[in-house]
């Protein structure tokens, strides 16, 4: 803590397989954090944002996916960014704060610090529409000091249109706060007597003492105690719960690349390379025929083959996909090793073979299917 350099450690909570069910069928093949958006694994985007933090000592990914699922990615990204990235596996879900606390010794190894406002933490906040706010943690901050005055997770009635983005900066003191909650839980379990404050917390009473959530268990009680502050972003923020959202977010990242790293975006006018419209990412190993027309919002992953006369609009084409001549793919995610037949039209699918001249619309297709008939608004198992 005495370091003059104020070294920073970044922690990204990646969750685990039980949480990824809404992301099925895409999460059947790959941990959701590694699903590619704008040509990069989802978790790559926060990692590369962390890379820009001065004095960054270490990035930890905490989750309860199998360690081996992250091994390859973690080693390649460490090399690429020249920042040590480590995956820490929780034995079971401990809640967002519990997971952090579990690995406090490792996190504190690099003596990180944060003292901007004098509190123990700052929360990234964004303004959303009043109608959508109740899907998130709603909070109220002091307009002058930015102190967090009130926090409530997914309230039934409207509290505020400012919500928690799930991005925090903490001082090591956060671990004391987490420990406090944990100890309180143990005490409560040991004593049958309940204070009025505890009576209000009936809902959480039965939780195990080592399961601590950042939002309900830390932010709510610490609001208004000059411990937590907010920082409001004017940039984009989205939650990626469903495959459909990943398409939108892929587009947002591609649009960001237009400003931050335009060289990764594809270009072409149909002469030597395919015609490119808007923001498009094409992996260097993918082969795209010059007569194809791609974009806007398309990302094409490794070893994909895009045939002559193919039209791709707003889609994610994953590794080893083959799209044969004159097929159209719109607003869809085409899963690993899928094959889309000639003159087919696809508007949502994954890891499937679509035979020639078939149409797939608004459908979710589970892996390893062959479609020889057209489908519309169906889930195919």
């Amino acid at each position, binding site marked *: 803590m005495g370091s003059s350099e104020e070294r920073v450690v970044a922690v990204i909570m990646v969750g685990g397989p039980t949480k990824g069910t809404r992301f099925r069928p895409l999460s059947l093949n790959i941990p959701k954090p590694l699903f590619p958006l704008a040509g990069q694994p989802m978790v790559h985007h926060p990692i590369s944002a962390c890379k820009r933090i001065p004095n960054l000592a270490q990035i930890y990914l905490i989750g309860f996916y199998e360690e081996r699922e992250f091994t390859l990615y973690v080693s390649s990204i460490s090399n690429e960014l020249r920042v040590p990235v480590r995956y820490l596996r929780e034995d079971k879900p401990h809640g967002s704060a519990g997971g952090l606390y579990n690995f406090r010794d490792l996190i504190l190894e690099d003596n990180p610090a944060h003292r901007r406002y004098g509190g123990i933490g700052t929360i990234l906040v964004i303004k959303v529409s009043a109608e959508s706010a109740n899907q998130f943690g709603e909070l109220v901050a002091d307009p002058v000091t930015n102190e967090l005055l009130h926090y409530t997770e997914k309230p039934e009635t409207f509290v505020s249109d400012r919500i928690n983005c799930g991005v925090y900066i903490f001082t090591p003191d956060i671990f004391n706060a987490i420990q406090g909650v944990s100890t309180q839980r143990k005490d409560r379990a040991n004593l049958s007597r309940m204070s009025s404050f505890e009576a209000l917390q009936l809902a959480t009473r039965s939780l195990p003492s080592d399961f601590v959530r950042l939002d309900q268990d830390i932010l709510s009680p610490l609001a208004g105690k000059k411990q937590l502050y907010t920082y409001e972003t004017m940039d984009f923020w989205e939650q990626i719960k469903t495959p459909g959202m990943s398409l939108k977010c892929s587009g947002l990242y591609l649009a960001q690349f237009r400003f931050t790293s335009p060289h990764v975006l594809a270009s072409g006018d149909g002469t030597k390379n395919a015609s490119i419209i808007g923001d498009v990412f094409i992996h260097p190993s993918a082969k795209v025929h010059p*007569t194809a*027309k791609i974009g806007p919002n398309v990302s094409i992953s490794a070893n994909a083959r895009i045939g*002559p*006369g*193919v*039209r791709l*609009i707003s889609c994610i084409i994953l590794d080893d996909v083959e799209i044969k*001549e*004159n097929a*159209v793919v*719109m607003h869809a995610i085409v899963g690993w090793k899928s094959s889309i037949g*000639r*003159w087919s*039209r696809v508007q949502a699918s994954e890891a499937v073979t679509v035979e020639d*001249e078939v*149409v797939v*619309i608004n459908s979710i297709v589970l892996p390893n299917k062959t479609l020889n008939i057209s489908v*519309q608004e169906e889930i195919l198992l």
Partner: protein
Amino acid sequence: MKALILVGGFGTRLRPLTLSVPKPLVDFANKPMILHQIEALKAIGVSEVVLAINYQPEVMLNFLKDFEAKLGIKITCSQETEPLGTAGPLALARDKLIDDSGEPFFVLNSDVISEYPLKEMIEFHKSHGGEASIMVTKVDEPSKYGVVVMEESTGQVERFVEKPKLFVGNKINAGIYLLNPSVLDRIELRPTSIEKEVFPKIAAQKQLYGMVLPGFWMDIGQPRDYITGLRLYLDSLRKKSPSKLSTGPHIVGNVLVDETSKIGEGCLIGPDVAIGPGCVVEAGVRLSRCTVMRGVRIKKHACISSSIIGWHSTVGQWARVENMTILGEDVHVCDEIYSNGGVVLPHKEIKSSILKPEIVM
């Protein structure tokens, strides 16, 4: 010999195509429907065709004037001022049908497409010596139609059963008749039905004979049957004059392409496709089971199946048109649009996809 073609009404079942032209002038296999019949009649020596029509006779006659000269056949109209059913128009055209020769005359329903074995029908008529001959065709679901019950060996018609619930036979009236002039004496000038009122009486006197139609038969009065009819017609063309059909690596099955149309690189056309005159089919287009009428442009990479593309329409790049989509005259489907069974009235621009079968006004 003379012939009467029952043209009838507005052809509402073939809308939106019949919003642009009378039904008999709607193209079928690159030729107006009625020309198939007129040419077949001319081929067996019919010299005069009377069209029994109840609307727009000027449009029909103007159009057919050219063909009168070209085919060397006289075409006249007999216009009903009120609908006269299927027999009334014969009484109305009586003077045009009767001449000194005393020869029998043909009556054809204009919705019907077949191989028109009219020569065989004349021989059949002569051989049985009865007053009237009727062509019958075998169908899978006779309960939908009027069944003709006849004596197997001679073809003598015993009775007609309208939409039978119990199986009485599988031969139905194919809408092609050869009648002696005396039949006209049995028909009054009033709305009346030939199959319900006139034929049963002739059958009762054992003067009506049915001939089983060899080859295909289809009533193409509605889009689905029109598309099926094209398949049957092209199958028949394959047997009779295969040289009229297209060949090449980009062709699958039976495809009829007018010589003035252009087909681009990397297309796959067929089976059962008719492309009319002056069409442009750009590169990488897929067409199957469809009719593309005069002056249509199909842009690159589009895919069309089981549909009818009306005159002078365009289909945009990467558009997909299928499932009984019927585009009226001068309809423009924009790039990348999907039409699943859209029925589009003439002179429309389609800018958003039609995901479920519906009518676009």
